[in-house]
């Protein structure tokens, strides 16, 4: 494993010398003329050594190689990229959202003006806002295509049911992002769409009216409704999405992906033989003899 050059490490941080070694790792000077060339030589290797230095202290390499270079089944095709595509769309939304927040004001009086400012005045504002606006539709489209892929390939079956459940929660949260983000431009369409959405929430029996009150922070569209939606849209829900994407990916890496349904399992002669042996054991189990004995006789009778 490549080592970070000692010459670049401040003496207090250097690895202590092994017992018996004369402590030259701790910065005892080597012979003068060679010193320069040794430093140059080691500087050339520095980029590699930096990776090694981090790796030695974190053990990241086996983790990363296990995750990125894992084996995938035969027949894996472009449909398997829909999940990653959805995540990429989410990353785009997160990045553009963070930068839009630099200019946006979540106040009912100023929100629309700040949006028109972003669109018309801020350099590249129209592009960044456009990415965020259209990207939301892209993400929702991709996440449903991804769900369709998992469904039609039967990839939700044992042992991946929990990952399906997490994925469904992620779809719901993505739609919540769409709903809460829709209000933020605060034009007529946003306002009335949100009024309708709140009232649909209110039609749930018994809890509905209180849920609508909770979302609006009161009985009408209140002064804090917009900031409530803004906090949900940019902090609470994205945080939950990031955490669940982590769990989703962990399970993908741990359980592996499935082959497409049209790819058949390979039937090797060896596995056929195992089945025969098992059948033999089953047939002879009535004798009550030892397993090794039954195995041999079963093999003999079948062949």
């Amino acid at each position, binding site marked *: 494993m490549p080592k970070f050059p000692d010459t670049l490490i401040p003496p207090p941080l250097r690895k202590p010398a092994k017992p018996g070694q004369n402590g030259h790792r701790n910065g005892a000077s080597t012979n003068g003329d060679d010193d320069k060339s040794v430093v140059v030589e080691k500087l050339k290797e520095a980029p590699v050594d930096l990776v090694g230095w981090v790796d030695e202290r974190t053990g990241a390499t086996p983790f990363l190689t296990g995750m990125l270079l894992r084996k995938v089944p035969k027949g894996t095709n472009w449909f398997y990229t829909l999940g990653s595509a959805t995540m990429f769309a989410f990353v785009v939304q997160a990045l553009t959202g963070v930068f839009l927040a630099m200019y946006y004001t979540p106040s*009912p009086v100023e929100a629309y003006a700040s949006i028109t400012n972003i669109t018309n005045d801020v350099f590249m504002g129209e592009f960044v806002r456009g990415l965020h606006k259209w990207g939301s539709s892209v993400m929702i489209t991709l996440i449903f295509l991804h769900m369709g892929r998992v469904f039609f390939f039967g990839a939700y079956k044992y042992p991946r049911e929990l990952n399906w459940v997490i994925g469904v929660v992620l779809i719901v949260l993505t739609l919540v992002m769409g709903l809460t983000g829709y209000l933020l431009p*605060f034009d007529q369409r946003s306002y009335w769409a949100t009024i*309708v959405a709140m*009232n649909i929430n*209110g039609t749930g029996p018994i809890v509905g009216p209180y849920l609508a*009150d909770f979302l*609006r922070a009161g009985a009408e*569209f*209140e002064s804090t409704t917009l900031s409530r939606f803004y906090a949900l849209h940019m902090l609470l829900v994205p945080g939950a999405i990031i955490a669940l994407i982590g769990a989703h990916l962990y399970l993908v890496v741990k359980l592996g992906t499935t082959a497409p349904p049209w790819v058949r399992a390979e039937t090797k002669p060896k596995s056929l033989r195992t089945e025969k042996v098992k059948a033999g054991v089953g047939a002879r189990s009535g004798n009550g003899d030892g397993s090794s004995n039954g195995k041999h006789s079963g093999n003999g009778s079948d062949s």
Partner: protein
Amino acid sequence: MEKAKPAGYFEGETMTRRGVFTLGGQAVGGAAIAVVALPLVAFSVAPILDTPEEVWEKVGRTSEFTPDVYSPVITTIRSGIGEAGKTTVYVRQGSEDLGEDTNGYIAVSTRCAHLGCPVRFVRAAGIFSCPCHGGAYDFEGKVIGGPPVRPLDRFQTRVVDGQVEVGPRYSVTGDLEPVRARDPGEFTGGIWEYLYPPRPSTPPAP
């Protein structure tokens, strides 16, 4: 074989030292989480229980309103949020033909009882119509077509010094009996009063 006694065991103890500390540690941790989590939940849920002040707003002189036709006026239901806190209300004088008090004034909300879109009074037909999903209401605000689940809401009115004032909103049943304000889409009257319970965030019905 009997289990080995833990260190510090004494005869007749019902709980090990370790058990006490495990439970105690979990209790302290739970209390620490509750100290942060409960106020946060209460903080975000509190508006459900908060009753806002009743606001009465002058909308015009009594002579400006007649029993035969609605006049649109603009009133503020939430202050401090600009246009978003305002709403259009249709006001008319009480009509003798409909058996109403002619000294009173009827203020009908423009919030459609289906999902809350703004309804418009069509003067020629004498009905209210909603642009979103085709809800239609008669002159009194009773449903005559489309998906709305109850008549149009109304606002309390009073006359002070010859000026008509509009107050808090309330909902009505199918027979125009006043009940506490509901959100659009929620039925009123009968068993619906229990399925869509009145909320503390709305003022009581007149």
